[in-house]
């Protein structure tokens, strides 16, 4: 990172560092503007509120919002879609065919069922992601690699150009890495969005075959990592190539969050969303920093205005000011609530298993799956991918997991290439049925 970047750290300093009290006031103002819009135009919101006997004029404060406004979730959207024949699950609040509106329909990846439609309307220009790309060190005149694992519309390259940078489009495929190296030699890109687990595995294999990865990728100031968690061992491996990684995640289908250079949680932009973290089995907030379910409310998406959306995502969250100076909350993703298994009363998520599997050299790529017949199980069952099968490998993996979790698992070993073939290009299914 050079001094020019350090001296000009924020894309929107007056928003990113807005004092907490002013941020709260801004949120409340935006919320009271959004709620009538959502109620009047989004059929699922109206249905949920009418069922609960709530109207927007009764919600004049955060306290009333938290006490009275009903939750929605993905199942509610799917039921609404199936029952009413509404492909948008009751969450489309504008006519996408309105003349002059750049209307598009994106969709979720379909990891947990039929892809959910995500209507979009906008005009070309930088999105909120500019705050995150700027923090990476990307500046006007730079080039920036867009290597998104599934194409989700123009927002990424709109943002890059809106920052004065030029996107380089590369398929998210390990086979494309040699081409990426060539592009790096020619165009010296400063940012990369994004790296994923399978690409890290491929880079490691190239490094072992003699490719100088550090030299090939030496132009980057920052690399966004996304798709699934990154274990500490994998992170150290990537950093040994001279790359500074910035973890990135979606936030309750209302936005995204990315690490800053403090690498102490992922920044959520609270001028664009209200984040609540609640008891996963109830509706009460957990203490700041405790694990809970993320519940999101958009403050800017008038096309599909999610309000109190139970995301199924388990997170830790804090509103403490970050050392970088930003005042917005920070999130630590833990996994999906529906991925949790409870073994003899102990909660286990993939993120808990990760460091243990990484610790065994033959399974260091952390390609594993939790076999989940249901939430409550008598014994933890894992399918773990290996690079080289040794007679004592199963026992060593079981020992490592037991040392980390205090639970002895049943481990099934498979060639890691078998697991890699199961996934989309950026990840594998981490929780599967027997």
């Amino acid at each position: 990172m050079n001094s020019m970047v350090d001296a000009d750290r924020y894309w929107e300093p007056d928003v990113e560092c807005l004092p907490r009290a002013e941020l709260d006031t801004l949120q409340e103002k935006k919320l009271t503007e959004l709620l009538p819009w959502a109620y009047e135009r989004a059929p699922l919101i109206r249905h949920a509120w009418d069922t609960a006997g709530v109207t927007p004029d009764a919600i004049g404060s955060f306290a009333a919002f938290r006490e009275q406004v009903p939750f929605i979730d993905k199942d509610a959207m799917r039921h609404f879609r199936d029952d009413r024949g509404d492909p948008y699950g009751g969450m489309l609040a504008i006519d996408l065919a309105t003349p002059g509106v750049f209307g598009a329909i994106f969709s979720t990846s379909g990891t947990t069922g039929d892809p959910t439609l995500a209507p979009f309307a906008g005009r070309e220009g930088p999105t909120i992601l500019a705050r995150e790309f700027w923090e990476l060190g990307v500046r006007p005149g730079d080039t920036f690699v867009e290597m998104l694992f599934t194409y989700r519309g123009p927002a990424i390259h709109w943002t890059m150009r809106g920052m004065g940078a030029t996107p380089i489009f590369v398929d998210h495929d390990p086979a494309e890495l040699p081409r990426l190296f060539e592009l790096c030699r020619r165009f010296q890109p400063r940012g990369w969005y994004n790296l994923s687990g399978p690409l890290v595995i491929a880079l490691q294999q190239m490094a072992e075959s003699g490719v100088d990865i550090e030299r090939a990728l030496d132009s980057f100031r920052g690399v966004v990592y996304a798709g699934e968690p990154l274990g500490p061992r994998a992170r150290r491996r990537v950093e040994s190539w001279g790359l500074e990684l910035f973890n990135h995640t979606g936030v309750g289908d209302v936005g995204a969050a990315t690490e800053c250079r403090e690498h102490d949680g992922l920044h959520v932009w609270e001028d664009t969303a209200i984040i609540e973290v609640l008891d996963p089995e109830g509706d009460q907030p957990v203490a700041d920093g405790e694990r809970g379910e993320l519940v999101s409310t958009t403050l800017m998406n008038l096309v599909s205005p999610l309000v109190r959306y139970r995301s199924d995502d388990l997170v830790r969250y804090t509103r403490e000011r970050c050392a970088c100076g930003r005042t917005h909350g920070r999130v630590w993703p833990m996994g999906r609530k529906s991925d949790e298994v409870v073994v003899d009363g102990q909660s286990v998520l993939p993120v808990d298993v990760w460091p243990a599997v990484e610790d065994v050299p033959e399974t260091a790529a952390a390609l594993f799956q939790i076999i989940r017949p249901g939430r409550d199980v008598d014994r933890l069952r894992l399918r773990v991918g290996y690079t080289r099968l040794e007679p004592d490998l199963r026992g060593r993996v079981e020992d490592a997991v037991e040392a980390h979790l205090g639970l002895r698992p049943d481990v099934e070993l498979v060639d890691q290439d078998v697991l890699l073939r199961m996934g989309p290009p950026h990840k594998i299914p981490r929780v599967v049925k027997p």
Partner: protein
Amino acid sequence: MTPRTVPAPETWGIGVVGSEAWPVSPADIADETESAVEHLRVLGIRDGGLVLIVSRLAETIHVAPLEMAAGRLDARWSSCDATEGDAFRTASLVRQLSPDAVIGINEMIVNAVPSHTFDEVPVVAVTDRVARDAISSSRWWLRLGPTSAFECEVRAGAHHDADRWAVDQLAGEIVVTNRANRLTPARQLPTGVRGSVVDEPCACGRTTPRVLPS
């Protein structure tokens, strides 16, 4: 809270043509969007219609003009990846959205989805011979260097924008040359498309040359 403004980059983006990096300018994309408006009209996209575009990220310099053209027509668009792993999403979106046209179907996708997936789609534009043979009445979408060509309803060769691009055949391969200014010029650029150039008028009424893949 005034948003920061910075000068727009002179290069719109860097895509790929064949195996070559291919920088394009904002003017190139605007020009290709003009061509794409006509392509989408020929595919039957109208005000309020919907087109599903199936592509790879590296094809963005070909796809962005189609997206913007949909907007110009006051139509909507959706997208999926042209990969085996994302084929299920193509099938799902066809079922959920009932698009007026699907663009970009290839061998991997037809091999991964049920054979009836595209039966109710009015127009399907394909990118390879296997998909062409698998989907009745499908039309070609050819990437001719950095530009595109689409077949009309006659299905007798793909039309390109002849005001902006010249096409020729060299040793059985289609090559293209830019007639309009482009950031990265193309002079008889090999396209990887094997076929011939048909110089006779099309039954649709257009008189410009067409590309007929072999």
